[in-house]
Every structure is written in structure tokens, then in C-alpha cells.
């Protein structure tokens, strides 16, 4: 287990927990420390007389602590992980105490029960007629919503975009709300995202027109959805806002077993919802999988995927022309700690890959993969990700000094997200250790 402090801090729910956890990561606070093949534990001397008992499951880095904190993971769990990352010699292999073994066993049982429940539900008889009726009704509503969107788009074309900066964001928000009512939530999100564009960046008219045009193409495709191949139908329905329930994914998909490396993690948040994207890559297959998690407000995410760690498991993929989104089937088992990425690309090959992906699934929002030998370069007030031969792509708006400081300008294999316009770096390996590059990476200061 070769953890880095930065990697572990990516688990912290906020910068306060990260800071407090780091403070606790000193040997003097931990009278007892130990680890086994499946867990890590320690007793942390707090202000009370009884030390807090902290345990971490090494398969998925779930943790439990006897402290009363409602933060998850709490500062003690983070402290234990940071200490393990910085001074692994202090944590010796040892027999699991009862309070560790019991907890692990209980976790295993809960997971098994959940799976049995899902299986039982899948086998339960379904009222097909009622289901079809519901589906038809929903199709109709969405169809009406999209027809209204098409008229709205044409209005914008007729009257011209030049007046929009004066109109304000309300125009887009209203249209987005109508799409929500029509149960086309994904399209609603895309329309809402346009609200701040008019009058914004210098090339806003072109950006806006591109997006409106792509919306129109989506509507046109949906009008003719029956003529599309079945996989593409799934992708299109997802792009409009139809969802597939997790149990249906589990029931329908052929799961793919592999050793999955969490190549990186990205977090997007607006006022209400936080969306976490964990990108995995199969060690043997090279398959990329996206695990999406949503949380409201400051609620923690249900599952923790430690970037740069690896686990063996079966993943079930959502249906579509280019299956990407996936979920865990069953439980994960810890795998040998990865020391490097397994599949790497040049920037040219990333662009080729992205073009091919768009050709088979034109509604694809982004792809993720590992670029070989990348360094950030600050030039003329802009940041680029650069390979040694000079191939470069612009980085998403942000501050990359932290990346530059950590990397020292040495080219490293780096996991990235590419949305067709800018790159977002996720993390890299150096000397067998993983360094995340998300927002959490800066908690370190």
C-alpha cells in the first residue's frame, strides 16, 4: 500500500477536515496502530479519556470511527490515512482486534443482503401492460417538450442572438424549467448552462450558436428515434433525460470483471447538487468506466473511490452506443496497489479517440483517458498541457501552479478529462505513487 498524502486528502469532505486530519497525522497522537490485508486501524488520543477507535476498509476506503463527528470520513480517519501515507513504517501488520474484525464482517453481510434484495426484485413479476402505458405517456410528454424547444430555438434564430445580452439569463432559465416539466432533465441542464454565455467570452455568439444547433440536432434525432440502432437509441434517450434504474442496469447488463484502477476523480458543484465523476480503467481490458455519484448540499457521497487505488470487481454498464457510465455489481476486493497507469496515449491519439467516440455517440459530453508524459506550461497568461514533442491542448480555466510545483516540470503520465474544448487533469503517478489534481489537491496548503 503506497498512499500519498494528497491522494488521501481527496477523501476529505471539506478543507477543514483535511486540515484537522493532517494535524492529527503525528505519531504522538496514536497509541495503537495496525493493519491487515483488508483493513487499517488505529486508536487516536482525543481530548477525552478514551481514545477514538478508527478503522478503514482497504477495499473501498470506507471508514468508521467511534467519535461523534457527523463528517464523513471524520478527521481521525483522515489523520490515520495521512499518517499511513507519510510514515508507512509506523503501521505494522498485526492481528485484527475484535472491534475491527466485527465491523468488516458486518459490512460484508450488509452488502450481501443488498445484492439479494436486488436479485429478488429483478425476478419479481412485472405488469408489462401498465409499464408500456407509462412509457408511452412519458414519450408523449417529452416529445411535446422537445417540439416546444424547437419552436423556441427557431424564434432565437429569427430574432437574432444580438439582443440576448440585454435579455438576461431569465430567458434560458424559463425554457429550462419547461424542459424539466416535460421530463427532459438532461436537456434542461444544457439549456440552463447557456444562461451566462451571452455577452460573456469574446466568442460567445459562436459558442451559443454551436450549442443551440446541437440541441436542434438532438430534437431532430429524437423525432426519428425508431430509425436508429438500439444502442444509439439508449444514448439519445440518456442525452434527453430518460434514466435507467440501477436495478435495471444490473439485471440487463453483462457485467465486466477486471481489476479497476481509479485513474482520477472530478467534482462539479452548483448551489444544490454536487456531482462526482470517478473514472476507472480496466487493467486487462483497458475499458474506461465512469462512476457517477450525486449528493445534495454538503451531504457526503455514498461511496468512496480513492483515486489511484485499484480493486477487483464486476462492473455493470448503462446501455448505449459507447458504454461509459457503470456501477459496481456485488462487492469490490482490494487489488495489488497500482504503481503506474497501464494504457497511455499521445495527444493526437486522444483527439482521434475523441473524434471516433463522437462519431459513434454524438451526444457524448466528455471522454477520459491517460496522456503520456504531460507537463503543465504557463504561456501568455494561459495554461497548456504539453507533451515533450510540443503537442499541446489548452487546460480548463483554473490555477495549475500546484500541479507545476508538485511535478517540477518532469513529464508524467496523467489522467485527463477532455470535453472537446479544454483538458481537465485528474491525477498522475510518480515513482509508484499517485497524486490527484482535483480541487482537493490544493487542500494541502
Amino acid at each position, binding site marked *: 500500500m503506497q498512499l500519498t498524502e494528497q491522494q488521501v486528502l481527496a477523501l476529505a469532505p471539506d478543507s477543514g477536515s483535511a486540515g484537522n486530519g493532517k494535524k492529527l497525522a503525528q505519531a504522538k497522537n496514536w497509541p495503537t496502530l495496525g493493519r491487515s490485508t483488508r483493513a487499517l486501524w488505529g486508536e487516536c488520543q482525543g481530548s477525552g479519556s478514551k481514545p477514538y477507535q478508527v478503522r478503514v476498509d482497504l477495499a473501498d476506503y470506507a471508514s468508521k470511527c467511534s467519535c461523534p463527528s457527523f463528517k464523513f470520513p471524520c478527521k481521525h480517519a483522515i489523520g490515520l490515512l495521512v499518517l499511513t501515507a507519510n510514515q508507512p513504517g509506523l503501521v505494522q501488520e498485526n492481528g485484527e482486534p475484535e472491534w475491527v474484525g466485527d465491523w468488516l464482517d458486518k459490512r460484508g453481510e450488509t452488502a450481501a443482503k443488498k445484492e439479494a434484495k436486488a436479485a429478488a426484485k429483478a425476478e419479481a413479476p412485472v405488469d408489462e401492460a401498465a409499464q408500456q402505458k407509462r412509457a408511452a405517456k412519458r414519450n408523449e410528454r417529452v416529445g411535446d417538450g422537445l417540439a416546444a424547444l424547437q419552436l423556441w430555438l427557431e424564434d432565437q*434564430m429569427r430574432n437574432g442572438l444580438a439582443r440576448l445580452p440585454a435579455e438576461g439569463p431569465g430567458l434560458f432559465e424559463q425554457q429550462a424549467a419547461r424542459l424539466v416539466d416535460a421530463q427532459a432533465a438532461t436537456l434542461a441542464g444544457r439549456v440552463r448552462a447557456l444562461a451566462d454565455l451571452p455577452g460573456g467570452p469574446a466568442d460567445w455568439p459562436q459558442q451559443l450558436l454551436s450549442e443551440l444547433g446541437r440541441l436542434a440536432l438532438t430534437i431532430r434525432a429524437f423525432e426519428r428515434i425508431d430509425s436508429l440502432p438500439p444502442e444509439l437509441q439508449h444514448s439519445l434517450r440518456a442525452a434527453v433525460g430518460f434514466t435507467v434504474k440501477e436495478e435495471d442496469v444490473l439485471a440487463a447488463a453483462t457485467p465486466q470483471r477486471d481489476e479497476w484502477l481509479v485513474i482520477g476523480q472530478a467534482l462539479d458543484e452548483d448551489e444544490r447538487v454536487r456531482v462526482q465523476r470517478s473514472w476507472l480503467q480496466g487493467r486487462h481490458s483497458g475499458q474506461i468506466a465512469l462512476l457517477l455519484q450525486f449528493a445534495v448540499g454538503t451531504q457526503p457521497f455514498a461511496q468512496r473511490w480513492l483515486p489511484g487505488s485499484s480493486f477487483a470487481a464486476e462492473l455493470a454498464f448503462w446501455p448505449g452506443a459507447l458504454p461509459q457510465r457503470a456501477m459496481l455489481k456485488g462487492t469490490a476486493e482490494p487489488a495489488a496497489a497500482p504503481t503506474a497507469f497501464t494504457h497511455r496515449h499521445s495527444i493526437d491519439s486522444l483527439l482521434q479517440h475523441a473524434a471516433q467516440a463522437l462519431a459513434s455517440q454524438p451526444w457524448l459530453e466528455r471522454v477520459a483517458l491517460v496522456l503520456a508524459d504531460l507537463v503543465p506550461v504557463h504561456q501568455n497568461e494561459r495554461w497548456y498541457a504539453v507533451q515533450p514533442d510540443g503537442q*499541446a491542448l489548452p487546460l480548463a480555466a483554473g490555477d495549475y501552479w500546484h500541479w507545476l*510545483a508538485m511535478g517540477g516540470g518532469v513529464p508524467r503520465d496523467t489522467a485527463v478529462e477532455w470535453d472537446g474544448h479544454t483538458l481537465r487533469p485528474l491525477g498522475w503517478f510518480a515513482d509508484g505513487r499517485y497524486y490527484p489534481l482535483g480541487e482537493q489537491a490544493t487542500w494541502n496548503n
Partner: protein
Amino acid sequence: MEQLTRLALVGTANAPVDAASLPAITALLPEGSREQRLLWAAGADALYRQAGQRAATVMPASPAPAETRRPLPAALRPVVAELLSGRLEELQPWASTHLAECGYVLPPESLLTVLAFNHKAQRAAWLPLLGERGRWLAAQNPDWQWVLQAAPAPADAAELEQQWQEGTPAARKTALTAQRQRDPALARDWLAAALPQEKAEQRQALSEVLADGLSSDDEALLNQLLGDRSQGVRQQAAGLLAQLPASALAARVRERVAACVQWQVPDAPQGTVAKVGAWLSGKRAVPALSINPPNELPKDWERDGILAQPPHGTGARSWWLAQLLGLLPPDAWTAPAGLTPAELLPLLKKQEWDDALLDGVARAAVRFGAADWAAALLAQPALLYRDPALADALWQTLGDEQRGSLISNLLQADNLDALERLLGSRPAPWPATWSPLLLQTLRRLDFLKLPTKRLSPALELLGMAARHAAAGDIPAVVQVIENEIGQLAGHTEWQYQQLRSRAERLVALARTRHTLLQETAQ
């Protein structure tokens, strides 16, 4: 796409002609209204462009050079992170200096915090810890130029001269300082040649370099600076000339002092300083000084850097006198009389112009590095209150032993207030002999019996012990503080509660310091 965008901006209702798209797209467009065709063409064009995106070309810079200093041990990383986060702020100056002296370099994740520092002293203390990586980073961000300016002067003679000719003001001073150490005469020539083109501020900053390795060879240039337009430059030159006993200015100073300060010894009409010793040993009446500074500031005094305008609250004549005495080597008082400063000082205090006398002697003690005078002056706590900056300068001239006995005296006199003022902000670690002294006093202290107004100085004393005690004494310091905390525990009055939380913080501080010392000792 440009044509499509132009059409969309204006609106199809306001433009009669359709815009052209790529032929491949136009050929595929189905029938539809003008608005529909514009939307579809734009959507397809956007997809085309996204799919056909090409890489830009940017050449990467060379990576950071390898570090030459030692990496920070893992056990110290959380401690350093805590220090850099601003907690335990008062430990920062000492800790950064100590870590730098141990030859460490910060881990990369801490560099950005240090690069963002604004405070001059803080920057200087952490600078060596930035290492190669930090300097490499700083070269890429204009906000971090201070790191490069503070770089040491190059060893190569040609590079040094280039830095002197072309560098920033700070870099030029660095180059001149380095040259002064290698070849004082050449440095003087550089300076003399450059001075006419410099601004007053820079003239003063650069000529300050002459203080290093000062010799009578510098007198000609300093005399020239004495005629400078800038008052600051004149004053500085006078200060340096005064340190050259054979200089004309030093002779003028001696004459002027002799003219306006004379010992009045009743039985000895010669009335010179030399006779005072005899009077003292004879235990006769207190010898008096006849002091008579000029009523108008003479022009030649002003030329020698004496400022005409006194600070608020000081009389003009007194001010001139103090400045003049500040240029006189202090052994001009002691040597002829055969007395120690400690013996002579009480005499000076009994004179009519005592403030000006003490002020002048103190300035002289600093200027001429007279440690015996500094020790005697600092034993007068009044000085600490009147002019903290001067007191600080005096303290700097003392050796460890003198500092130790000074502290010991103040401790014995229970003068905690004076101690706090003297030692409160000093980052230097204490010599091993001091901690036991202080601990002795601290063990005697009982917070509950102290009058309220003495609580704060007493706590400050504990803080000093926590910050400065030698490594081996820290556990004892922690024990003393924890005893006090224990005593305070039962008292709920706010002043005791506040005291307790401050004391708890001191324990944390002492422990962190202990960790730091232990880990760096390995």
C-alpha cells in the same frame, strides 16, 4: 461557421440571404425552414469542428534542477504544514531559521504557501527552504520575483559585474556587497563611479555597503558623501567616518564635545574627564558636568550629519547634543577616568542634561559595538520603555554571557515587565544556561497570588520559556505550565479562564518545538 454566426446574431428576419456552411454539411441538410437549416448547419458544423480538433504546439520548459539540500523528514511535514497554515505563528521565525540552518528543503506541496508570503522578514526566513524547485517556480511567475532578487551573488567575476551593471536595485546591492568582501577597493571604485547617477534612496542603500570592512582608505569617498544633497546619505557617511578614529570628522567630533561638555571638579581646575576617577575613588562630592550645547546649530555640525529638527517632545539643543555624543566613541568617557560603564552611568544620570547624555551614549554604544556600555544601559529598564528600537539595537551588541547576566538580574529583581519588553519578540534560541534560571523563577510564580496586572507579563514569561528554552528543558517548561493550568482549573473568573486557554496554547507550542528539535537532531 463565421457566416452562420453572423446570420444568427442579426436574425433571419433581418437578413434576406442565407449563410453558407461547409459543402459537405449543406449537401446533407434536409428540407426545412431557414431557421431550421441555420440551426442544423450550425450544430453539424460544431460537431465537425470538435471532431477535427488539432493539437496546438507549445514547447515545454526544462524541468526543475535537482535539489542540493536535504529533504524534510516525513515526521516534520505535518509540523511544517501546521506552521505554514498560520497556527503557532510566534514559532514561525525561529522554526524557519532553524530548519534552514539544518539544510532542509520544503516538500513541493508547501512551496506555494511560502511563495505567496508578503512579509519581508517572513520571506527572508523561509527563502533558503524553497530550494531549487522553489526558485524554478518563481522564475515562471512575475508575482514571485522576490525569490530571484534575493538570490546569492554569482561567484564568477564577470557575472558579478554584469549583475552590478544591469541588475535590479536589490540585486545590485547584493553584487556590491559581495565585491566589497572580495576586493574592498574595487567595490569602492564601483560605488564611486555609480553614485552620481543614483537616486538618493539608492545612494544611501549602496553606500551602506562601506560599513563592511571599513578602513581609512574609505575616508575620501565618505568625505565626498558628507557633501551629498540627501540628509540620509550625509548622516550615514558621518556615522561611518566617526568610526575611523584618524578621520577628520572624528577629530572634529572630539573637539566639539570637548568644547561643550566638561567635568567640573572643584579642586581640580584642569577640569578634564581624566580627573574624575580620582574624585570617585576618593568618595567625594559627585562630580558635575558642565554642559553647554550651542544655542544655534552651527553650519559645520549640520554638514556633519547632525539633524536640526528634533523629534516631538525633545528640545533642540538636547537633540543636537545627543546626536553629537552618538558620534563619539564611548570609551572616550571610560578610558581616561579608569571607570567601568556601570560605574560611570549613575554619574551621567545625575547630570542636568541626563536624557541627552544617555541617549547619546546609547547611540554611540550601538555604533561602536560597545557591549559593556550596552549591558550597563540595558540594566536601566527606563530605557526599554523610552526607545524600544534603541534598546533592541543595544541588545544586538551583547554577547551571550552579558545577555544571560542581564536576564538573571532582572529575574532576581522580579522585573517581569522589563524582561517581557526585552525578550518578548526575540526569535533567537537561548543559550543552555538561561533556561534553568528562568525555570527557577517560573516555579516560584503562583498565578493565583499575582496581582491582575502582573498576570500578563508572567504568562509572557512562560511563553518565552516555551519559545526559547533549550531542547532538554522543554519537558520541564511544559510541566511548569501544566502545573499552572492545573491551578487555574478550578477558577471560573474570566481572566483565569482566558489565562488558561492561553497557557494551553503555550503547551501546544512547546510540544511542537520539542518535536521539531528532536527530529532535526537526528
